[in-house]
């Protein structure tokens, strides 16, 4: 069973179904976020349904590009024999 589940995420044959399932999950999460009750919201953004989706996506993109910028332009990434 485990083999089949892992295979579903790896095999090229399932690529289309995988993508559809993924987008379906994304839509469901946003819809659910509009439906749950938000009584205890303390901060402004917490009252906005869907903010976490935007924030998660933004964080991800920001982290990738800021890090890569620091790595390439900031000189953090070096050849593997740098210390030899």
């Amino acid at each position, binding site marked *: 069973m485990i083999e089949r589940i892992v*295979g579903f995420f*790896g095999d090229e044959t399932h690529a289309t179904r995988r993508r559809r399932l993924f987008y379906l999950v994304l839509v469901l999460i946003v819809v659910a976020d509009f439906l749950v*009750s938000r009584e205890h919201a303390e901060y402004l953004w917490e009252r906005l349904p869907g903010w976490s*989706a935007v*924030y998660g996506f933004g964080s991800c*993109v920001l*982290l990738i590009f*800021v890090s890569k910028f620091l790595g390439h332009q900031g000189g953090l*990434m070096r050849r593997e024999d740098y*210390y030899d």
Partner: protein
Amino acid sequence: MTDFVHPALLFILGAVPIPFLKGTIRKAYLVLIPVLAILAVLTVQPGSYGAARFIGQEILVAKIDRLTIIFATVFTIMALIGMVYALHLTRPGQHVAAFVYVGSALGVVFAGDYLTLYLFWEGMAFASAYLVFAQGGERATRAAFRYLMVHITGGVALLGGIVLHGLATGSLLFGPIEGGPIGGGMGAGAYLILAGFLLNAAVPPLNAWLTDAYPEATVTGAVFMSAFTTKTAVYVLARAFPGTELLVWLGTAMALYGVVYAVLENDSRRLLAYHIVSQVGYMVAGVGIGTEMAVNGATSHAFAHILYKGLLFMGAGAVIHVTGRRKLTELGGLYRKMPLTVALYMVGAFAISAFPFFSGFVTKSMVVAAAGQDHRALVLLALTMASSGTFLHTGLKLPYYMFFGTDRKLEAREPPGNMLVAMGMAAALCIAIGVFPQPLYALLPYPVDFEPYTGVHVTESLGVLMFTALGFVLFLRALDPENTISIDTDWFYRKGARTFMWLAEKPLARYEKAVSNVSETAALPFLHGTARTGLRVDLNAVDAVVNGVARAILNGGGTLRRLQTGVVTHYALAMIAGVIAATAIFAVAWQ
């Protein structure tokens, strides 16, 4: 004392027979001791044990309260899992080192005074360094020496702090540092102790030892290392410095620091090591916030973290064990050959990413919620961003490039059964804690008033995580691992040492040559003359004496040469013997 068996003693004394046991008996013994230790921890009663006086100071070998018990519980559980993972090793060295390491970590957790704490603190450093040395090869040996030197430096800072703190307060009992967050202004001693603790917690800029050494350790050694050193540091911070404002900001910065470096990393276990830095950041921040909920959060997160991080290191270790490769640029397409490893690794990945029904969800969120409750919006947002980064790397990037991605047609199979069993144990706990958080909450130092499974919390977490996945899918190519290493703060001592060596080899050597030139042109002719005169005297009178002395030196030198084995462990032993001797002399002199 009869009603209390010190778990640290179980491990440290229990390490002695290991080399003399063989085969199945040794394996049974290696599992038996951690099981006994778990039982010992489960049956301990809060209180103080082993009070004594040493060099005029109060010593308290074991002081037990709720914070002690929860850390000791997870340490002994992890010791059992780690031992099962390492059962296939035939040579006893790593088992012995791991036992001493776990025992020392437990010694720190139980320590009621600073001297006991310091003793076990150093024991941890030496025993864990062995797990890096045991890997063999030049890279590992160099990394192990750096690891040892950094920890010895940290230990000296800690000892200095302990002495100053002891002189200032008149007591070496280990507890909240008075006058810290409340009374305003800590003394120099308290700052030195804090520095020693922060070094072991791998707080930047004192973090590089961790990401430098852990990936160089043995496959099984890294599993132990990922669990104990940083979490003992979290424990001592929670004990001595709760509510220290500085820790909030260091912890928050640390959570993001680890995530940024993880983007750049190509070595699978170094990527995971940067995530230790990031995750310990949550705990340090929680301790810094210092409210009951925050300390509960930091403690429970340490508990969950030890298990899922161990699991992740076991997964990456299994890949290294069967393929011999560690770089993401050289891995890929393993999922068909090791599906069980993939599945177990992913449980750890979901746990660290805080997916609902996995352990991270019920613990990490407590720290984040405590930050929110304490009106720290910036900390809350930064920690949420770090969560996104955690899933991005440990949950998506690492498994994608290690198990899926480009099929490199590597020879691979599932790892040995004992490794899979150990991973299964950790995975089961990761899920059990996520689904039934109450038993863990019941162990926490303060009463828990927190419900992780509310609708909004579940949808918000899933929103952050799954839209991180969307970012990953869209920008996959930007994340392709590159064949590089990243400069961290170890640059200062790795390049600094080189500058020192250059100084010694170039300017100093040139100076030495100049001096010898002068002596050759001017002093030598004069010396030759005197020497000839001297020779006559020497041949007749002095020779006899000199010959006698020379023979003595020759003999002494021979003995010394036999002592200089060049084996690192021998030197380490000599150092420990030296420390004990110095302590003894110190003790006598003090009284």
